[in-house]
């Protein structure tokens, strides 16, 4: 049985939403405070959305120095499943656990809206239960969500099949419509949209389930 740790930085705000999504999948989960130096006995880690350290300086810039991040890096290096959602994605890029960077949205405003994502690769812990080409309706909620990287990084992302999700209709100016990327091994994933906000039709969409089920190893084709 998978046990998921959800990291709480000061300023995180989607940590309870992540716990709620895990509960809906029947998966045990716990909060891990940023000051912790070990992750305990968790099988997977989520860095939730929010504004760690107020997003001051740059989103994720201060959070990546939190004590817990050394443990997250070590966990990722051993192949552990790590998912960064929104601010969590920004933290993972700042920490160098994922390539690239996230810049302010093209329109220079915060955007909270529904988007349609297209699964670009199933070579990741997040997308392994989905189909390439599958469309998922999942909301975004960010100010700095435009994925950016230099050409060499981009070529390498493509070469290693690391672009896992794209926007069908690019809302923020992200390079090549990128919504989510994975590490080369596929065990570390970051995405700007919020799959935990798309877990029930009562709230508008249940399309996030296929992603989070895959992440916790429940999905049909999960390894």
């Amino acid at each position: 049985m998978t046990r998921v740790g959800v990291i709480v930085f000061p300023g995180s705000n989607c940590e309870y939403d992540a716990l709620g999504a895990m509960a809906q999948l029947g998966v045990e989960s716990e909060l891990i405070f940023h000051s912790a130096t070990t992750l305990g006995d968790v099988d997977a880690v989520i860095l939730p959305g929010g504004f760690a350290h107020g997003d001051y300086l740059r989103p994720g810039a201060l959070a990546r120095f939190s004590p817990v991040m050394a443990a997250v890096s070590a966990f990722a290096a051993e192949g552990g499943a790590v998912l960064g959602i929104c601010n969590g994605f920004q933290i993972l890029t700042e920490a160098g656990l994922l390539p690239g960077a996230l810049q302010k949205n093209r329109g220079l405003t915060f955007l909270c809206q529904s988007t349609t994502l297209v699964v670009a690769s199933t070579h990741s812990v997040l997308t392994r239960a989905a189909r390439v080409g599958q469309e998922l309706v999942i909301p975004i909620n960010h100010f700095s969500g435009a994925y950016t990287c230099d050409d060499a990084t981009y070529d390498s992302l493509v070469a290693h099949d690391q672009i896992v999700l794209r926007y069908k209709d690019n809302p923020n100016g992200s390079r090549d419509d990128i919504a989510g990327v994975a590490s080369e091994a596929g065990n570390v994933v970051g995405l700007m949209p919020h799959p935990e906000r798309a877990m029930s039709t009562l709230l508008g969409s249940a399309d996030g389930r296929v992603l989070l089920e895959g992440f916790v190893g429940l999905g049909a084709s999960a390894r």
Partner: protein
Amino acid sequence: MSSAPEPLHRALGLTDSELDDIRRVLSREPNHLELALYGVMWSEHCSYKSSRLHLKRLPSKAVHVLVGPGEGAGVIDAGDGIGVAIRIESHNHPSAIEPYQGAATGVGGILRDVFSMGARPLAVMDPLFFGNLDDARNRWLVEGVVSGISGYGNSVGVPTIGGELTFDQCYGANPLVNVLAVGALPTSRLALAVASGLGNFAVLLGSSTGRDGIGGVSVLASAGFSGEDGAASLDDAKRPSVQVGDPYEEKRLIEACLELLDLGLVVGIQDLGGAGLICATSETAAKGGVGMDVDVTAVPLREAGMQPYEIMTSESQERMLAIITPENLEAVTAVCDKWEIRANVVGHVVEPVTSSDGTTVGLLRVRNGFDGEILAEVPASSLADEAPLYDRPRQRPSDLDAVHADDPTDDEPVGDANADLLDLLVDPAWVYRQYDSQLFLNTVVGPGRDAALLRLAGPGLPASERGFAISTDSNPRWCAIDPRQGTALTVAEGVANLACVGASAKALVNCLNFGNPEHPEVMWQLSESVDGMAMACDALAVPVIGGNVSLYNESGGRDIDPTPVVGLLGIVDSLVSAPPGWNWREGDAVVLVGHREAAGARPFPLAGSRWATRRGRRGGQLASFDAARLVSTFAFVSREVASICAGASGDVTAVHDVSGGGLAAALAEMAAVTGLGVSVARLEGHGELFAEFPGRFVVATSDAEAFVARAIDAGVPVTLLGNVGGSRVRLGGLIDVAVDQVGARRRDALEVALELA
């Protein structure tokens, strides 16, 4: 120009007779520090000295009211062991000077009111009023205010789930930025702002104290902008009072305070808002009937060389005052360390003194060190509760009869009704897209519909199937014509919005934005408005559990139109399925629910309508508030929708109340969001298209016969209007326009006006 220097008390905003009152309270001359404390505490903003007399007339009692007006926020018992706290406040004047920070700190302030009750903030709403967008300064204000609310609200982690957006020339130099917050708490965690227990400590939590906001909110909010160009005329002396918000500090402060309350570590807690530390210490002491010694040297400062009066009155943001027992200090410090917020003992609760006549008086003493020199010593209650109460002169405006006589209802509908309709449609999505409206996974109906509807759930709350609904409403166009009827109808519109999502109204909060109270016409408007609100709340059985008054909204001597804003809170007992919203389907029948014609002199009054206002017509006679009609119609609609929320299958596919822009706008909005047209055969001319009066709903149903039968059973009149279908909006031979055009115009209107598109 040389003249005798202004006496200090007047410079502090105190009148000569107020100075005499202070001398009487103290039986001596106040010193400068004491004078400064009275100056801020007796300001209009803090003391409500012009409005308190009138606010007493509002009904505030009901069995489910746990906390009424007077505390940080009102609280109702929502069932299942959950209390819901709600409060609304204005941040008008700060926003006129620095729109981003003014609006941001408004959000911060209202949240502190809510979590000071022990409630976790779950939702924010932002009713906004600006001058016309053809002026670049107004566009700058809109962008700044919206990004300030977005920047603070999103970062602090509370969803903003609705609001209002009104443009009128009367707000040109004096925009209104109101903010409403709702929170929920296990009823066992309810906290009050009381200091008690001799020897207890007052602990200041959160940000350090700087010179920002010295006399800021209280002085700014208690004085009008005198010059032609409004804020630009503010003299430099008032400018440093601009405060900068820190949502990250507030976020940690929320977590720390809720943890302190959960652990039972505090006796009482209050936020620091207008008038800062002096307000929080004197109010908690006065409520507890105790004295308090405050040590100014114990307050952590952000700037060197601050004077005691600056420390006591600074309005630096993100601070709270907790009253704790000394033995809990260590535990309190540990929680604060975890969340990285400052905690400093700045006050001691002390015994009240017994005066010569045997009564006891809690003294607020400002000291230089707890054992040091006493810098000020005044009865706490004289600051907090005993500000002068004014019954300011009131006078019905002399031109009002002429205004009433000038009724646009009989105007010839010159021009093209299609164009009129297209001009009235504005989708505020550009605003609310900038707000996180989904956090906490509660938002079933977000911004953009009639009322927001959220699951009543949150970290630390008992499990519940219930939902809560909120709507903010105002109608300055109506209130300018008739503040009493206008306000009553505004309340009705709020309740109608709740009915659209299946909720019944449980409580109301209000923000009374008015002009200069020293103008008798303004005081008359305020008094009339309060009476109208009281009448509507009595009739609709909604208690008023909190409010805020913002006066001196004027510029260049011209008062704004009376703008009472109401926030309605409703409960849905079972929320397992989303309400129908506006999602009508091809082939549905379209039914008008409620009396087709208005109560009052005119069947289809255009007075105060958007249609008339766009033509520069601002007079006439409003519909009258007919309680019996409204009660039965609202109950029927809310019951119909509530059963869908509870999971029953039914024939109702869409519900929308008829409000701004009238029936034509309601139908066009539904067509715009679904992309499906509508045909209505017969309507009584342009009056029926554009008249505005609450109590009517557009309902789409897949089984008109069954629906009509239920309405008749409930004694609610219904009119079959027509059918959903096709790609055009066709209304009574007067309007015929393509759905695509309706959708595009509505979608782009705001961005075009802001010159962003």
